């Protein structure tokens, strides 16, 4: 972090220099007595003021936002679209006769992924990248703006036809389809994280690393839970 180191040095150097102006260097050089405490030592220990700490903090945070790569931006942009679809289909649950477990699961997916969409939008905005915006049209959650994405290439994205099937399903049939589709969808997100980390230069930004790791582990955990819920459903009734 060359930029921050530099300003740090300026801060630490300026203070002793200013202090040195008052005492005068010439007399000190002629004085054979033991040297007085080194003023630079003293100032090095002098704590930074709150304002200086805050300035340094902002500078470091700003600097940490310069370590991203194209792959990071693509991941964040893609994942906004991915999350938006999870939110859209989770919103079906309350009106489709879903079981209590499914409705709880759907509510948590909505809560979690809406917050994560905000995190991703903030990440892009902080790095002066195009920020996708969410719009609701009826029960659809649309994403506009942001860098162009290839929805077909995104793992785990449901087709319009699959979404329509889910919308039309009721009760246990809805539960089964919801779990089946959401497992596929979550597994896609986990794949996206794995692909990100397999890309040169990606994930060096700590915010990306942490966020992507969290998405990976949260969704893998949820896949396991959904798998169990699906297995606990009766074999009959056919949902696929």
């Amino acid at each position, binding site marked *: 972090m060359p930029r921050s180191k530099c300003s740090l040095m300026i801060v630490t150097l300026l203070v002793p220099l200013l202090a040195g102006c008052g005492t005068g260097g010439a007399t000190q050089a002629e004085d054979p007595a033991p040297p007085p405490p080194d003023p630079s030592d003293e100032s090095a220990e002098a704590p930074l003021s709150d304002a200086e700490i805050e300035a340094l903090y902002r500078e470091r945070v700003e600097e940490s936002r310069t370590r991203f790569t194209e792959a990071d931006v693509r991941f964040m942009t893609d994942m906004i679209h991915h999350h938006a679809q999870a939110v859209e289909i989770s919103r079906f649950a309350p009106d489709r006769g879903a079981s209590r477990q499914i409705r709880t699961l759907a509510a948590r997916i909505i809560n*979690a992924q809406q*917050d994560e969409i905000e995190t991703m939008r903030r990440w892009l905005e902080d790095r002066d990248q195009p920020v996708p915006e969410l719009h609701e049209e009826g029960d659809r959650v649309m994403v506009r703006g942001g860098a162009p994405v290839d929805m077909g290439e995104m793992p785990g994205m449901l087709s319009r036809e699959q979404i329509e099937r889910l919308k039309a399903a009721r009760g246990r049939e809805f539960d089964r389809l919801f779990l089946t589709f959401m497992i596929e969808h979550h597994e896609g997100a986990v794949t996206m994280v*794995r692909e990100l980390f397999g890309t040169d230069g990606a994930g060096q930004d700590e915010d990306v690393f*942490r*966020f992507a790791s969290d998405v990976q582990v949260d969704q893998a*955990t949820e896949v396991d839970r959904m798998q169990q819920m699906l297995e606990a459903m009766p074999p009959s009734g056919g949902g696929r």
Partner: protein
Amino acid sequence: MTDPYPPEQEADMRSDSPSPSTERTRLRAGAWALAAGLAVGATACTSSSGMPSAAPAEVERQVQPFSETSPPSPDPRVGLGAGLMDAEEAIWNLKKVSSTPPPEDFIGVTNSDLAFKDDYVIQGNYNGFQIWDVSEPADPVLVEAFVCPASQSDVSVYEDLLFVSGEGLGGRVDCGVQGVPQAVSEDRLRGIRIFDISDLRNPEYIANVQTCRGSHTHTVLKDPADDENVYIYVSGSAPVRPDEELPGCVSVMPDEDPNTALFRIEVIQVPLANPEAAEIVSSPRIFENLEAPPTHGPAPADREAIEEAREAGAFVIEVMGEEMILPDESADALLSQVVEQRGGSGPPTAADSAALRERLPSIVQQMMGMPEGAENGAEPGPTQCHDITVYPEIGVAGGACEGYGLLLDIEDPVEPTRLTAVADSNFSYWHSATFNNDGSKVLFTDEWGGGGQPKCRESDPKEWGANAIFTIQDGDMQFESYYKLPAPQTSLENCVAHNGSMIPVPGRDIMVQSWYQGGISIFDWTDPENPFEIAFHDRGPVDSTRQASGGSWSVYWYNGMLVNSEIARGLDIFELEPSGYLTRNEIDAANTVQLDYLNAQGQPQYQWPPSFALARAYVDQLERWDGLDLPRIAAVRQALRSAEEASGSARASTLNTLADELERDASGAAAPEKGQDAGRGGAGAGLVVMTTHPSASGASNTASGMPHPSTRVRATGRSARHNTPTSARMARLLTGST
């Protein structure tokens, strides 16, 4: 299934703490503890009467029941002004002793976990670690700021060794700050770094152990039976690194490759005489065949409601392993069907009722489906743990592993085995575990959203991103309740349950815990069904305009200090303040416990040396919980004062007399069943208390000094605080699914 408390273990535990079974079955007055402790302090001396027998005629209460105290209202944590270094603060029953900003190289970089050694605090940071001298808690002095970037820099110590976790992709073997841009590189460090810190001013980087998933956190296990090694359990939550970077790392299902890096933890052995030779010695598959139910079962209040309904004649059905009350409208509909099927009409008869009761299980099975006949062959279960807390003194560990909470047997540190597991449909991601001191309870946290999200808003459910409290009986865990930070936070503040530790207040289970920008919360979970907050500290958001990372990562009790690692603001040190929930004497007694070092994930068993502070703390508890009448309490206090002022044989005889009298008091204590009934039935009575205690013989024969009474406090007004009535849940289930 192995018994986590084999007989010899139980005998050991009984000597200074009640085992789970004795706690429930043997009830004695808390006076036993006091008497036994006093006897220990006086056994070497001769006995003669030295205790004033006359009690004052009018005695005023000095310690009030909890019901006389209430938290501040409105909650001062709501609406705090934002700021990095000048945020508004709210504090209750705590004193802030110091706040020290990070050293310059660490400002603006995430502070993480803490470890303690002697008078030093080691604070991890994504940029390395900091060593603070806290011998003067009001003025921590930086000893060393070691730059060696890696997230999360989770830190642990043992003797002269410091262990640091590296998980992020930018961590380098050479501690460089430039990161590692290539996806595959030999410069990358993901795993455990080992430092020699015999000279704290000059930590020496002596070894690395690279692991397949890196190390998100780790746990240092010192096996009491092995003085030559320590063991490190490595937990990682990031994806498996490529085989080209670290040979042998494969990320596939076990049926494809039995050596997969998934579905296992890694155990590193560190030879203390030659720590450079540290290496992975085993990869226990503690998740194998893990098929826990999707729920841990209903909360105690729900169980009670179900029993009441059953007794009242309601239909109780079992859905996915969970008992529920069939709502009246559904029961009526089913009953009319029964009437119709037998060709009858009119209201159902008793025989119809009985017929329905008999057929109900199969009807439910048809309606809801059966757990058998699984179509999907994918192996369930977690692939990794986030955190494992080992408790070597009881030979057990708590593993927080993705969708499960595990109880592990660690008698063999190299091959931990699973005792039991629980799951919870309210839990998103099991994060960490903390045992109470006697190992009869365990608390798991749910780090929903990974710590970067604001999960404490008014609208976020109290069961999500919270703690779940379990009692441990015969190696099984029984769910008791949730605890979540009671103060709502803004959407600008990342907030969820995070790290904490037990505070050694004798006779009670009190914990201090981090909630990121929700601040720190101290709560009493002595009664596992009714945890409640007793102190807090909180700051406003880091930034008033946007969510910025900050808040408390970890806060731990260490030798009288509560040390807080603030992600953005540095190191805080707090002290407990007396209140209606905690007396001065209880705090003083806690502070008699001294640790030489602490890693919170290697939980130490607290032991209290005999002291007057400890005796006074027990007297306070006896008064609070009406264990003795007020004149007796006053007389005991007077006797303790006399003893403390006296010395030699006079002190001994006063203590001996007091001990004898207290033993008599304890023998005459009320029968336990009565107390329990009063606790359940006493509406409006506020808190009814039962003080439980192991057998007198066990208690008086303590090696470590005074035993502590384990207490169960039942707050009648607090039950069912977090739980929706089962009938309502069932109604929602049925209306939604039929």
